[in-house]
């Protein structure tokens, strides 16, 4: 039973800094498996938080020392090169437990703030979301996993044959690469998706969140499924996990941390082995289509 929760600050809270730290400490103490740096609406959908999550992730990961820490970000406003570079560093500095959650919801706020050029017809939004993910992953793929050598004696820092331009050209994004950062320890940081936010993506996610209906659909296939619950629905949720309809629960609502603590008393955390979160979740390392087979 995996347990997931989201965390954010309120912009007009004078004690927001202290409160955020206290919440993180409680969540760590309770033992969450996933912490989403995202804003949760009353309706239970996720939006990018008030606090920019890609910058916050490496800071809060010190207090959240064990879970996968996931940065929510606006999918159609972010730039693949910047996101690929930042999440490479975040994945290294968290020893391979960084995730990203590219979101369409909440985008009106960002449309206004980014300017006219970012307004999209609704029909293009999922396509741009997918293109954003492909471009970002292509940049991670500009490096092979074993490109770094770091041999001081021989002076070999990396293998030049294992780093290349990818010249990615999609309908919305083009990027040459190589990224000026090495391939993250997980290959690709975990791709998390809120199925209430994006439906019909052509790219499978590593981890999905949603209600029981969504988790039963094609969009959830192959992913670690987290069922969204509130205090009112948590018992049904536990039954569904026992029935194999999901691998865990994402707790929401004003008392989400209380629920997390209560659930953890019933479900001790399963020991898992593996060098990265991806391995511990039993997910395969992502293939690298740009990698050249070097003759042995």
């Amino acid at each position: 039973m995996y347990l997931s929760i989201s965390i954010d600050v309120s912009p007009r809270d004078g004690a927001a800094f202290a409160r955020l730290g206290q919440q993180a400490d409680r969540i760590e103490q309770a033992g969450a498996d996933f912490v989403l740096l995202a804003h949760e609406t009353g309706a239970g959908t996720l939006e990018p938080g008030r606090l920019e999550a890609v910058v916050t992730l490496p800071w809060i990961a010190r207090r959240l020392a064990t879970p996968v820490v996931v940065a929510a970000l606006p999918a159609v406003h972010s730039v693949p090169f910047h996101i690929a570079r930042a999440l490479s560093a975040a994945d290294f500095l968290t020893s391979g437990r960084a995730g990203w959650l590219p979101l369409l919801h909440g985008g009106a706020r960002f449309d206004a703030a980014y300017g006219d050029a970012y307004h999209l017809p609704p029909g293009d939004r999922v396509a741009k979301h997918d293109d954003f993910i492909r471009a970002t992953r292509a940049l991670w793929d500009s490096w092979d996993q074993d490109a770094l050598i770091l041999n001081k004696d021989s002076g070999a820092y990396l293998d030049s044959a294992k780093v290349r331009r990818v010249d990615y050209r999609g309908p919305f994004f083009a990027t040459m690469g190589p990224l000026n950062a090495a391939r993250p320890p997980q290959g690709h940081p975990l791709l998390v998706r809120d199925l209430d936010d994006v439906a019909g993506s052509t790219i499978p996610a590593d981890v999905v969140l949603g209600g029981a209906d969504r988790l039963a659909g094609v969009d959830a296939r192959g992913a670690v499924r987290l069922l969204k619950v509130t205090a009112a629905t948590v018992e049904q949720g536990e039954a569904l996990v026992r029935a194999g309809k999901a691998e865990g629960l994402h707790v929401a609502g004003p008392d989400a941390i209380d629920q997390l603590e209560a659930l953890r008393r019933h479900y001790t955390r399963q020991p898992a082995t593996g060098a990265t979160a991806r391995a511990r979740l039993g997910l395969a390392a992502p293939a690298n289509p740009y990698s050249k087979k070097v003759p042995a």
Partner: protein
Amino acid sequence: MSRENGRLHLWAFLQGIGFFPGGWRVEKATPDAVFQRAYYERIARMVEDARFDAIVFGDQLQGRDAAGRTPGRLAIPTLDPFTLLAVMAGVTSRVGLVATVSTTYNEPAEVAAKFAALNFISEGRAGWNIVTTVHPNSPWNFGEPELLEKSARYARAQAFVDAADAFWRQAAGHPAANAADALRNQWFDIAGTLDFPTSPQYRPVLVQAGQSPDGRNFAAQSAEAIFCPAPTIDAGRAYRDDIHERARALGRDPSKMLIMPGLAFILADTEEEAQRKHRHVLELADDQLCIEYLSESIGYDLTRLPANQPFPLDEICAACEFPAEDVRRMLTPAVEAGLSIADACRDYARKPRGHAIFVGTPEQMADRMETWIDAGACDGFTLQPGYMPSELELFCAHVAPLLQQRGLLRREYQGPTLRDHLLGEFRA
């Protein structure tokens, strides 16, 4: 408050493994630690204990490759600066945290949001080294064929900073008087700002490193601290006087900006030992490394050419990724002196990026810094450890205490924010 801050400001300009390209191979270097959290936590604590104003990470937006070949003997310069500074914020409470971010390949909303977050998690210690991006391969990573021309880059930079400032002021509850113009103009078309959580310093400290007339005007207009290369006291004084002059002409008080020339350094107990260390780190940059290093600086893969021959100038200039006339100007002296590619590249890698390099004892370094301050050549130094982490450790353990004994450097921080650290006994 101002007096206790001291009249010498220290900024640690850090790259993953240090200033010299061969630095990652030094015995004490830890190139694998550059990918680990503990390394940055330790460095951050050390710099704060030595009472620096701030830690700065540079940044570039190009792949490291020349004509598609990524160097095999050069270290990765730095991981994403925001990520490193966010980690450092978690283990410190006073030292400033300055990220280098380009105004050419970003949007004000995104940059404003990131600095608001860094400022929030550090409780008011963020700074922004504003750059406009000069490497010709950078635009390719953003789907653009070529760089904007320089004066357009600086015009956009000014408009960008004004727009970002409108976001921060709005979030702090004090909207900018010129917000409407700052958000909608030739460069931007912003219909609404974002809500950020507030933090003690409403916006990051603005830092710049302009050299050209456009760059200097931009610095004089906006910057609270300014980096520059300054090989001599006279060069430092001339730069500082020039920036002060431009600031006055723009109606700004020059005592509100620090001039912080770059200074790389190698330290040892004796001068002979320091010289030996310097020679050693230069030797560790072998010919192949030096050739890759110059390749990267001109955007041409020199590793394919015979190293014992002179540069084939026409061939290089026809294909290099940097502007051909700049590359020709840069390489012509070596060709005229009859140098081989290997010799010319070795010369080039010895003086990375034209910054001043100090080699000597802690006492000598403190003397030199004091002399420069007394001569009005600067307000402090942007220190670039020759290699990491050992040279930074030596500075913190042996030079910082000397500067404190001489009353030049604060013994305690006088306030919690980075802006508090900049206040000093200016002698404009």
